[in-house]
């Protein structure tokens, strides 16, 4: 696949604070790429560099083979969906969508045809004459999408476009955006801090933190084979343990040796081990590789979430069976469910679930995070 956008060794800092630090990224033509990370990780800055609103201090931006560092936004064939939509309040829906074409002095007939097509695409037929201030958040979002797409961009940049919508609407719009991307075959670069959104929509997920890319991969790669403790912790729930790689396919933790599917580490190299809560089997204590005591159980609808104390380390396990608090259970882990990662700067930052409580769960909820960000 051809690269449509290439970022090479990009660095940006504002007021002496480093925002991006040596970022390399290639985006393929027609791909749905998501930049995922916590606030302040540099994902929006990356998007604004592609849009032309920020010139990097160091590094190069290429569209195809052409270096575009100095090309102003209005000369780039990319369009942006802004976080707060940024519709023009003095123009009605029709004129908002027509804006780009009016600037380009397109013919009246062509404008009318394209606006009609775009409004049909986003299900806003009949809204032409409406003032944008009378529209709901979801409708404004659709106008913003139609307005950007009316310019026929090669690449569409989306800056947390669904962050201001409620959960139900957000789910619907996720599906709709994905369909639009598929049917038009254009490249989407999508910024979000919502991991679920990233996993369900993207072809490629770029996980960022601290101005650097932590991992690039397909959603399944990112989830099943995180490359460091940050990615493992940020995407989904993880039990992250200290381990020692005894030899290829053999990793030791809690004083026990487990078979795994990872190789290529040094002999006796210290590593981080990730086990997802849903990948752990609960068995009779005598049959388990490890034995622990249940300290907490929470009903989650589809499953129970239980916290199990194994030699002082609190595991999170998701299971469909009820296990009473203080019962003793055995734990078994299949070799392919063990993900071994090299030690990184993030090692040891994410402990076990000993501080886990419902309250913390709520704080980590993307919805609550949204409210705080506004």
């Amino acid at each position, binding site marked *: 696949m051809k690269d449509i956008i290439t970022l090479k060794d990009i660095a940006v800092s504002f007021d002496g604070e480093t925002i991006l630090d040596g970022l390399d990224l290639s985006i393929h033509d027609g791909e749905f790429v998501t930049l995922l990370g916590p606030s302040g990780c540099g994902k929006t800055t990356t998007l604004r560099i592609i*849009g*032309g*609103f920020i010139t990097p201090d160091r590094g190069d931006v290429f569209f195809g083979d052409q270096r575009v560092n100095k090309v*102003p*936004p*209005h*000369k780039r064939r*990319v*369009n*942006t969906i*802004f*976080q*707060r939509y*940024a*519709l*023009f*309040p*003095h123009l*009605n829906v029709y004129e908002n969508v027509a*804006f*780009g074409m*009016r*600037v*380009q002095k397109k013919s009246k007939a062509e404008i009318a045809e394209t606006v009609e097509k775009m409004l049909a695409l986003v299900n806003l037929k009949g809204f032409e004459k409406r*003032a944008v*201030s009378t529209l709901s958040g979801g409708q404004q979002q659709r106008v913003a999408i139609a*307005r*950007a797409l009316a*310019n026929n961009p090669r690449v569409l940049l989306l800056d947390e476009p669904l962050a201001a919508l409620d959960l139900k609407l957000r789910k619907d719009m996720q599906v709709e955006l994905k369909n639009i991307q598929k049917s038009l075959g254009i490249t989407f670069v999508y910024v979000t801090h919502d991991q679920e959104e990233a996993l369900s929509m993207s072809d490629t997920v770029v996980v960022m933190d601290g101005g650097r890319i932590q991992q690039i991969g397909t959603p399944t790669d990112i989830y099943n084979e995180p490359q460091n403790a940050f990615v493992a912790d940020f995407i989904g729930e993880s039990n992250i343990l200290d381990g020692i790689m005894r030899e290829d396919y053999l990793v030791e933790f809690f004083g026990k040796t487990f078979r795994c599917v990872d190789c290529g580490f040094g002999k006796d190299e210290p590593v981080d081990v990730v086990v997802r809560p849903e990948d752990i089997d609960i068995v009779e204590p005598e049959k388990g590789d490890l034995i622990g005591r249940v300290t907490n159980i929470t009903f989650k609808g589809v499953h129970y979430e239980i916290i199990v104390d194994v030699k002082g380390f609190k595991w999170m396990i998701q299971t469909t069976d009820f296990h009473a608090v203080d019962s003793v259970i055995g734990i078994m882990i299949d070799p392919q469910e063990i993900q071994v990662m090299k030690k990184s700067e993030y090692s040891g930052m994410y402990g076990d679930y000993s501080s886990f409580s419902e309250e913390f769960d709520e704080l980590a909820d993307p919805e609550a995070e949204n409210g705080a960000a506004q």
Partner: protein
Amino acid sequence: MKKKTTALAAPFGIWMAIFTIVPIAMVLWFAFTDANGQFTLANVQEIFAFDPSKGETLWEDSFVSTILYSLWLGFLTTVISLIIAYPLAFSISRATERVQLTMVMLVMLPMWMNFLLRTQAIKSLLSESGLLNQFIGLFGFGPLEILNTDAAIVIGLVYDFLPYMILPLYSVMVKIGKSEIEAAQDLGANTFSVFRRVVLPLSVPGILNGITMVFVPSVSTFVISTLLGGSKRMMIGDVIESMFVGEAPNMGVGSALSLVLMVLIFLCMACTRLVDKSDDYEKGGLTL
């Protein structure tokens, strides 16, 4: 419920009655009555120097040229103020919050001083031995005879009323989001296009308010014209003043003049409002 809210409006109603309705009624009364309190059109006719017995108008004796002269100076003042204030207000609105506060403060500061004092200051600045002439004298120019010309009056008016143009402009411009400007750039608009298609239309309410707030007081101003323009020509405000406190007061003609001026200004404003067709979005700024 309704009774209650009506009662709450009573103080405002009384205020309006005493300070707006009664004065206008008095102006109307004086304009259309003679010394004996009988209805007459003589006062209005005198403004146009219309002689009912001959059925013709003596233009050179009328106040029409004074009224036109005042409207002209008011128009000049408004246009010049707008040209100065627009870019200034825009750059203030794009500055950081701290700079914005300071700049708005600096704009408002002169408004806290008595306007007579400010006009006197301008007078001494513009005089033959004033700072301006001393300065250009350094380069071998001048001295310019600005004082006692129309230019001096307009300079004084612009100086006095500029804040009333800047503030309404600033208050609408500060609401134009950075993201709307970026969205326009993103859609292919260059700097000029962003201005014409986004910034200018969004600042129309501010422009209209600014025009109103500068044009109305500068047309009807008095004292400024005598101080800076000499006594060669009077503005309509000076004439009206002289009709009430001058050597030969004539409250009837003075009231009639006020009335005519009021109607003319009202017509001018109505013309400006025709420009503002865009009623479909939230308007900002101060409304008169």
